[in-house]
């Protein structure tokens, strides 16, 4: 039995230790916001927070998360930070097909929590592990920049 915290709730599972965190989240806990784009840690669509660090959940066997604090997109939807990102992505036009977006939002939140006023280069570096095939990234970079301005002061509360 593996016990960990998922979106603020202590949960347990008897799934084998080799099961990917991504599958556990999606199949057992039915949280669909974490997407599978490649299964090899290359696209970032499955990004989640593990102890506040953004990670690809497709590369994490659940045996390694005992006692950890896991947050998925569902776990941050109610936060002030998410609301700012939501609005900024809408205004900047950062969302097209949407498949990369939950992962991109997680990467954006992680970046801004660490660096509330990133430069354009720092934003590009911050999301370089998240692939988007629709937007050419610029409008996502704009969205994060906008979120940094609008959310001045809220990012480091986490």
């Amino acid at each position, binding site marked *: 039995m593996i016990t960990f915290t998922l979106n603020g709730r202590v949960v347990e599972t008897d799934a084998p230790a080799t099961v990917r965190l991504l599958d556990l989240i*999606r199949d057992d806990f039915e949280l*669909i*916001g*974490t*997407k*599978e*784009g*490649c*299964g*090899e840690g*290359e*696209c970032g*669509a499955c990004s989640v927070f593990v102890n506040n660090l953004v990670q690809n959940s497709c590369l994490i066997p659940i045996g390694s998360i005992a006692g950890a604090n896991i947050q998925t*997109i*569902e776990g941050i*939807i109610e936060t002030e930070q998410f609301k700012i*990102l*939501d609005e900024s*992505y*809408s205004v900047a*036009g950062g*969302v*097209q*097909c*949407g*498949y*990369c*977006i*939950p992962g991109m*939002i997680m990467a954006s939140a992680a970046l801004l929590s660490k660096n509330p006023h990133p430069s354009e280069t720092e*934003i*590009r*570096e911050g*999301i*370089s592990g*998240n*692939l*988007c*095939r*629709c*937007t*050419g*990234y*610029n*409008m*996502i*970079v704009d969205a994060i920049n906008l979120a940094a301005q609008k959310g001045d002061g809220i990012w480091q509360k986490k």
Partner: protein
Amino acid sequence: MKLNDISTSVPKKDHKGKVSGQLPYISDVKVENMVYGVLYRSPIAYGKISTIQLPNLPAGYEVVGSEQIPGPNYVKIIKEDQPIFASEWVNYIGEPILMLVGKELNTLYRLLNEVKIEFEEHQAIYTLEDAIYRKSESGVTMASYEFGESLEIISAIEHGAHQIIEEEYDTGYQEHVYLEPQGMLALYKDDEIIVQGSMQCLYYIKNALLSALACGEDEVRVIQSATGGGFGGKEEYPSMMACHVAVAARAVKKSVMLVYDRSEDMVVTTKRHPAKINYRTSLDKDGNILSMCVDLFLDAGANEGLSSVVLQRALLNSAGVYKIPHFHAKGFVLKTNTVPNGAFRGFGAPQSFAGIESHIGHLSKQAKIDPLEYKRKYLVKQGDPTITKGNFRDPVLMEEMIEDLLYSSDYKKKKEDFQRFNQQNQRYKKGMGTSLFLHGCGFTGSGERDHIKATVKLVKTKNDHVSLKISNSDMGQGILTTLCKIVAKELDISYEQVFYPDPDTKEVPDSGPTVASRTTMIVGKLLERAARKLKTQWLSGVEQEVEEHYIHREMIPWNEKTFTGDAYPAYSWGVNFVEVEVDTLTGNVRLEKVYANYEVGKVIDERIMKGQIDGGLAQGLAYGYLEKMTSKQGKIQQKSISDYGPPTSLDVVPIDSKVFDNPYTDGPYGAKGAGELTLIGGAPAVQSAIENALQTSFQQIPITPEVIINSLWTKEGEEG
């Protein structure tokens, strides 16, 4: 919200569901009694199946193959050459032979390993070069067209010419890498199969299912689920997956889900056709073009699929945006025993534009004239004939668009600065390149009239909500928003009152596929007309319904046999300027600045248009220097995203773009197509920028670091 100017951006209809991740894509769907499917695929490129040995299947696990197909064993597209399950011959590595279905994916993968199939192998055609060499053998040439000036006249012109330049140009595969891999679900009911999934063309799938299941209209139904990117990759390919899950669901009487993982998706799904283009151009002593012959070869892979139509578009664009005297072209679709190629944003045009822009650029060097200046001498104008004796009847704003970029990029000064920089720097070299291009909007020729015959419907409820009933897919390009805007504006009601439910063939007429830059221009226009009709009949608080059908405006009639007439009702236009820095030690290319001007009639939503520009250009630029896919002995070599190399956020720079107004009578609010256009100029502009930086010529894309290093070595050798 009432809409004033149609171009002013509004919040996207699907924003909330996408940003929160709660909008379900097909792989997020689970239904009762659902089983998964996995495919056994041919491990050889060409041969005959001799024996099939199946493992003992546990209870609840079954095998589905060609015997379970109620109808004929092919995926209905154009030709009948693509089996649903190969039953005798296999024609490429990865071709589906049978499907195992059952509850647990892990068990299915284990069982798949235990399937033993033996083949009698035959000599395959692995490369386009080989196919060209063997093109007169039976079955190798799948389609061909030839048109233009007579070869006798060209021969006479060449005879008197000062010089004849011959060039051979190659373009590689391009992989779509939509972020959501392909996925399809067949829901089983006693009297109906519902196929749901990631797709661009609902009625292509429905027609394929009617054939495969040999059933009645009301026994199959196709519903589009949220689609995580398409770019053409979900145009015809999903028809095969739909046949797989529907046949399986019928056979096992359960709902069947088929979702590809990334490596399967990269290796077996359609890609942009590799092409070889030969140019033969005669020049006078000042370097002016006297005549041009183009021979174009497309690698279809193992099935014809849509390749003949791709070839048509490639040929129609083979002279680029230029009025070339005495132009002749011919093209071939050739079979190889490799993964079938298909639709990809641009549909044959990106290959042609890469080629012609490269060739014209090289001719300008012969004439010792700046490439852009040389190109402008031949630029088509309003009223000029097309290469198929059609007509550019609408205003052409290319000169204005070029002038604007010359000014905003400070072109002349930049080029001088770069030349100085390059003289002073050994390792890094800077260059500036340009591309000029167009895109024909809608289906080629009379396709809209003869094949598509689009119908749209608007349905109004008692509370005065209006729903769009059309078969077009939003795959990220934003039509959920733009088409609702057109209807809201025309009805003069609020945008929030207009809805666009997930298209379902039980509810929507066939308004055609979501392809060919036709959705905004053709479907949008039909919706505009339907809304106008509804407005005149509007009765508040009453349920109402209106329908509109495509009306063909006759121009110079298109003749596919002679390849003459107006190939497209309208054209969208573009100009790209690109600045790069090349590291001559590593061969790496870094984009420094990208400028882009477009003319798409009228923009329906500025923010959505900007998204098409940035995303399309990122794909187009990467096609020219980053993205490389190869096939070796019939096997795709790049099985993961990083092996292939689509751009990350670090590869792209901000794009300085502008869109020019030039309203088109037969488009809604004057709009023409925009989605494909934005990709086309990327590769040729990046090539000419690299050439400018290194003062050399390339005959291929992608221009990867290896290509650059090789060319530098060759140059060094020559300069000794």
